[in-house]
Each structure stands twice: as structure tokens, then as C-alpha cells.
């Protein structure tokens, strides 16, 4: 019932196998699926449109990587673009050279600003800072009290003047208060407000102009839908935002609003909220977020490695040969060489069902020395011997050992390994049935161990 994006893309790209390049035409269905996935994740419609256009531009003309399924290749392009948009490393909170550092929290109603203010306080306190929480929401009933309780829970200083004072004045006065109490960081908890409320937007502007915060953080819920672009844009146009905090990331929202928010504000996501407790504040991980938005696990790093090393064309040729039972020592050698290349990702490959058999031996981790000997032995054979290993009787083995500078035992072992691999290949072909069609070990996205959902 529930298909992952990769599975959907697999079917969308079924016809792509064997084609040399990604073209506008042959990726159209796939892009349609990606578009759908992004919209289902609540990425804004226009943002998606731009994004798909960019992905198409990036994908068209790329050679189909032989070692991976085209679907996965496109997923990787999409994923990389998402990560690029969401920014690289974590953006830390600014610290002013001249304390106090002022951090202002803004956003729509009910996004979790007050709770997040408390979380930031706990975070800063852990880093040895001394925050002062300032109650600048004089509108919502008991908002001041809520922040006071939160400050208590966080074990930090609190400053409020009730609901009868102008929030601008409260924020200005907080600066002197911080100095008096020896606080090095001021956290301003402002009232939630609608971006279309001119009067309330004027108020936050005034606060920002009066205290010149070092950080103005836009707090938004991860469940936010299409309207994220509208509200974020208004806040951005009114205030010099410096960052975004995405809350309620502990739910099951795909969080596509992250893309919309970053796109519109041009600010990085500095933290994500992951629970109701005050320590439930996490750093933002673009990679993880991209996977979550696409509804998939960490297939990307796998594709990345695989595309460096495996030659899919050869793998298919091996299969063909194995099926026709003309598997010979030349094939064995080049297969060994492939496996050798895979050494660097040996662990990864071992996790793939059938992979190690496919590559002709249980021992994936042989060293350079072994490889040299194998090569030497096979190179000391005549062409006929390589192609028809059966004819290599005792006399020939002695000759080969001498010629290659190895021992008879090594030659024997190699021939035994070869025999084993041939049997395995035959077995696999029988079990696999329609071997050619499966397209090798990377053929299906389904059932790959690294593909779990988040």
C-alpha cells in the first residue's frame, strides 16, 4: 500500500535501464513522482516547481551510472539538491563581543516560541552562559506566567513587567536588567502574531530597532503547510531574520516546510524542537531532513559509494556467461578485480543479499598480495587453459606454478576457488530464473538493507 519514493521511482524508471543518458523524456515520469513526494511533504508548490526545474537541469545529460539503478541515481541528485538548499554545517548562535547577546524569538501564534525560549535557555546554560528570559508577550492570557514557570524549570533568570507595559519598553529595560543581574544573554519571547497584522508587525519592528538583536529567530511548526512561504516572507520583509527553528519535529510530519522557510528567509535552520521537555532541542541535520522530506532512508550514501566502484556492465556480462555455463578463468580474474575494487566498501557490500556470492567468493577481504598471486597464476596460463580450465592437469599446474613464481598449492587453491565460484554462479542463475532481467545486484531498490524509513 505504502510505497517509498524509491520504489515509485523504480517503476517510473523501468524503461530507463540500458539507456545511456538521462534525458528530459526518460526522466519525466520520475520527476513527476518526486514532485508528488515533495508536495506531500508540504514543500510549497512554487518552491517545488523551481526545484524540479533545477533537478531536471542537473539530471539531463548525465550518464546513467552503470552500477546503480537510474531511480536511485535521480533520487541522489534530488537529495543532494535538497541538502544544498538546506545548507551544510550547523550554524551556531551568534555571540556578541559586547555582552549581552540579544536573541529575539518571533513567529505566528501557537508555534512553540515560549517553550523553545526555555529550551534555548537550557542549551545556553549548559554552555556556561547566563540567560535572562524576557516576557514580551503581553497579549495572550497567562503568557507572562508561562514564561516565568518555564524560566523556573530551566533554572534561569526571568524578567517580566506584567501585561500593562509596552513590549518595546520591556525589551529595552531588559538590557539594564541583564547587566544588573550579570546575565550575558537576553532571550526575548515576543507574542505570536499574524504576518498580515500590520499593527503587530510594526511592534516587532520597533522592538528590533530598539534593541538591535544579534539573532532574530523565526519559530515555525514542522507541520506547516503551503502558507509557510507567505508568513515567512512577511516576517523576513519586516525583520532582519537570522535563523529558523523548526518545532514539533518529534511528530510524523514530513517537514517540507523546512525547504519553504529556508528558501524564503534565506536563513539557516539553527535548531529543531523534538519534544515538550526543555532539553528536547536538537541541532539541524540537512541530510536527515532531506531523507525525511523524500520519505526515505539513507540510500544516498550507498549510491554515492557504489557509483565509484562497481562496473555494472561487467556484472551483467558475468551473469550472461554464467548462465551459458562458459564461465572461465578470464572471467574469474576480472571478477576478482572487481571485487578488489570493492574492497573499500566491503562492509557495505556484505550487507547486500547475494552480493558476495555474486562476486564469486565468500572472502571479500583478501589483500593486495593475494591479488598479485592470482593475477600471476592466471597470466601464466595459455589462452586455451584460461578458457577451458578443465584441461589443466597435474603437469600443467606444475608449469603454471613455476612460471608464476607461486607454489603448486596456490595454483590448486585458485582452481578450487574457481570451481566453487562457477558452481555458485550456476546455482544463482537457476534460483534467480530470469537472471538477465534482474539487472544485477543493484537492480531493485526494494529490500536493500539501507533503505529503512526514518
Amino acid at each position, binding site marked *: 500500500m505504502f510505497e517509498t519514493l524509491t520504489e515509485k521511482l523504480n517503476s517510473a524508471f523501468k524503461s530507463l535501464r540500458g539507456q545511456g543518458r538521462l534525458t528530459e523524456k526518460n526522466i519525466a515520469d520520475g520527476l513527476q513522482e518526486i514532485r508528488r513526494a515533495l508536495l506531500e511533504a508540504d514543500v510549497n*508548490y512554487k518552491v517545488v516547481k*523551481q526545484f524540479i526545474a533545477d533537478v531536471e537541469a542537473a539530471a539531463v545529460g548525465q550518464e546513467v551510472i552503470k552500477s546503480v539503478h537510474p531511480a536511485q541515481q535521480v533520487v541522489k541528485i534530488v537529495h543532494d539538491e535538497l541538502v544544498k538548499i538546506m545548507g551544510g554545517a550547523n550554524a551556531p548562535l551568534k555571540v556578541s563581543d559586547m555582552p549581552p547577546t540579544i536573541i529575539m524569538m518571533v513567529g*505566528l*501564534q501557537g508555534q512553540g516560541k515560549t517553550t523553545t525560549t526555555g529550551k534555548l535557555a537550557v542549551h545556553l546554560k549548559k554552555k556556561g552562559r547566563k540567560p535572562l528570559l524576557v516576557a514580551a508577550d503581553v497579549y495572550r492570557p*497567562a503568557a507572562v506566567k508561562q514564561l516565568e514557570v518555564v524560566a523556573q524549570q530551566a533554572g534561569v533568570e526571568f524578567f517580566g513587567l506584567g501585561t500593562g507595559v509596552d513590549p518595546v519598553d520591556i525589551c529595552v529595560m531588559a538590557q539594564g536588567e541583564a547587566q544588573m543581574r550579570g546575565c550575558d544573554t537576553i532571550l526575548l519571547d515576543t507574542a505570536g502574531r499574524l*504576518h498580515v497584522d500590520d499593527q503587530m508587525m510594526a511592534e516587532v519592528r520597533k522592538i528590533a530597532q530598539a534593541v538591535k538583536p544579534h539573532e532574530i529567530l523565526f519559530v515555525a511548526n514542522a507541520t506547516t503547510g*503551503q502558507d509557510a512561504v507567505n*508568513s515567512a516572507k512577511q516576517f523576513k520583509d519586516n525583520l532582519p531574520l537570522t535563523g529558523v527553528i523548526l518545532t514539533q519535529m518529534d511528530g510524523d510530519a514530513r517537514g517540507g516546510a523546512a525547504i519553504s522557510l529556508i528558501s524564503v528567509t534565506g536563513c539557516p535552520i539553527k535548531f529543531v524542537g523534538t519534544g515538550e521537555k526543555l532539553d528536547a532541542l536538537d541541532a539541524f541535520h540537512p541530510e536527515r531532513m532531506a531523507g525525511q522530506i523524500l520519505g526515505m532512508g539513507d540510500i544516498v550514501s550507498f549510491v554515492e559509494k557504489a557509483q565509484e566502484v562497481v562496473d555494472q556492465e561487467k556484472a551483467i556480462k558475468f551473469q550472461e556467461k554464467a548462465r551459458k555455463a562458459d564461465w572461465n578463468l578470464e572471467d574469474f580474474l576480472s571478477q576478482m578485480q572487481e571485487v578488489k575494487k570493492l574492497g573499500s566498501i566491503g562492509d557495505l557490500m556484505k550487507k547486500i543479499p547475494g552480493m558476495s556470492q555474486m562476486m564469486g567468493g565468500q572472502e571479500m577481504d583478501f589483500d593486495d598480495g593475494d591479488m598479485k598471486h592470482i593475477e600471476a597464476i592466471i597470466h601464466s596460463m595459455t589462452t586455451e587453459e584460461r578458457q577451458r580450465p578443465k584441461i589443466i592437469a597435474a603437469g600443467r599446474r606444475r608449469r603454471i606454478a613455476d612460471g608464476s613464481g607461486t607454489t603448486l598449492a596456490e595454483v590448486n587453491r585458485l582452481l578450487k576457488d574457481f570451481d566453487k565460484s562457477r558452481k555458485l554462479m550456476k546455482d544463482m542463475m537457476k534460483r534467480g530464473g530470469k537472471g538477465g532481467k534482474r539487472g544485477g545486484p543493484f537492480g531493485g531498490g526494494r529490500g536493500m538493507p539501507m533503505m529503512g524509513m526514518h
Partner: protein
Amino acid sequence: MTEKTGFFGRLRERLGKTRTGLVDGVRAVLGTRPKLDAETIEDLEALLIQADVGVQTAAEILERLRETAREKRLASSDDIVAALKALLLEILEPGDHTLSWTADPPPHVTLVTGVNGSGKTTTIGKLASKLKAEGKNVIIGAADTFRAAASDQLEVWCERAGVPIVKLHAGADPAAVAHDAVQAGLTRKADCVIIDTAGRLHTKINLMEELKKLYRVVAKLQPGAPHEILLVLDATTGQNGLQQARKFTETMHVTGIVLTKLDGTAKGGIVIAIQKELGIPIKYIGVGEGIDDLQPFSPRDFIDALFS
């Protein structure tokens, strides 16, 4: 961090283009292309998706629009807009859009639930005031004993509405508060008891269990109670709203939705997907933070607003 010519630059251009209303959009589209072709469908889809209706639901609605247009040979843009509105109305109209008042004897017990920050407490304040104005005896139960100052917030609303509140200390068992509130309603022969609950994510099993316990306690006290279970949904919520509705209905029989924050620019289109799949009617809409900013839900007005 932004590159002017990069993704952001191009996007800003795209977003900068003047936003036309849905109807204008439709008309503009149909004006030049009187037939309901693929391109027009795509443009209509854009309009629905941007209202948070969702890709799947939008596609289904448009498929039906296509059929209707074919059958009835609709060509003019007005006809097509009217047909689309009719289809949406077909989804949103069924069900009871008012409070059911099924309690016999009273009080009519209403449980208010939803995720964090959706507007439960504010809605209760507005609703209490509304019912009071209708001459009803209302009692409010402060069963959010978890969030800091939650009962203080509710208390302010009760003062504004002029209705009594039943509350216990912070951290008390929410079910105990609900019990006391319903008990007070019975003794004082109130017309209705409205219970505020703590915001909770539908994915937190223990919190959903807590809600079930509260439900059982109320049900034991008063036959048929809770008679009303309102799920409060923020109109800015995207596709996750459907998931929220699913999980809350799995937990208890949600009788209606209150869609809040419609005074912003969000359209709240996810309720279309919700009612289509789960058949839960919308009962009220929140249109501001004032005590009078709660309105009965009108499917027609809602659809018109969707197109404005």
C-alpha cells in the same frame, strides 16, 4: 548564504510574481483555453494544492471535475468554477455542523483535543462565551495540567466569558479534573461542560492513552458522555493534518473539527481531505484572538474563501 542567481534568486522571482486569487487564476486559465485540457487541470491543481488540499485529494477532485465537464459539456469558465465548487460542497456539506446537544439529561459534555498550540484553550474561551450568550449554563474543566500556566490561561478566558472553572493543581491527573468538572456539571445542573486538554502529538502513544483514560472516566459518570469531541486544527497545518485527524479518530470518536487561525492567509484546505476520508464535519472556525472570533462553519463561505 544565498546566491542571488541560484535557487533562491530564481525562486524569489517566481514568488514575486503577483499572486492572483484562485478565481482570477481559473478564469485567466479558462479564458484562453475554454476546454478543460491537461494544462488547465494542472493550473486548477496548483490552486487546490496551494490551499493545502493535498496532491491526492486534488487529483481525485479534478478527475471528477473532468468527468462532469465531459458529461455536461461544460465550456465556460464560470460553469467550470461552479462545477468545482459543487464538487467541494458535496464533500464538505454532509454531517452536523453544529453542536449536537444529544445529552439527556444534561450536561452536554464536550472534550476539546488537538496537537500543541492548535488553539484549544482560546477556542474554549470563545465557545463558552457564545454558549453563555445563548443562555446556557457552562462549566469549564481545566484538564491541561501539564503545560506551564495552562490553567491560568484558561482561567482568564473563563473570567472574560463569565463562566466557572473547575481546576486542580499543576501536574494533577487530567482524568481527575475531568471527573470533577463533569461531577460539578451534574450537581449544578449545568447545560454543558467543556473540558480543555493538554496539547499532544497524535504520535505519542502514552499521551493518547492518557486521553482514553480521561474519556473512560467521563463516560462512567454520565451516560453518553463525552457527547462531543472536538479536534482543534490550525489552518496553517499542511498534509500532517490528515494524519492528526486519523490518529485522534482512532483514539476516540471525534464528532467535529474546529479550524482555527483562518484570519491569516492559510486556507485550511486539509479539512477537505479530512472530511472526504474520515467524514468528520467542521463545526466552527476561529478567525482571531478576540472572544467573538469564533464562527459557525459554513461550507459555502469556506469554499468561496478558498477561491478568493
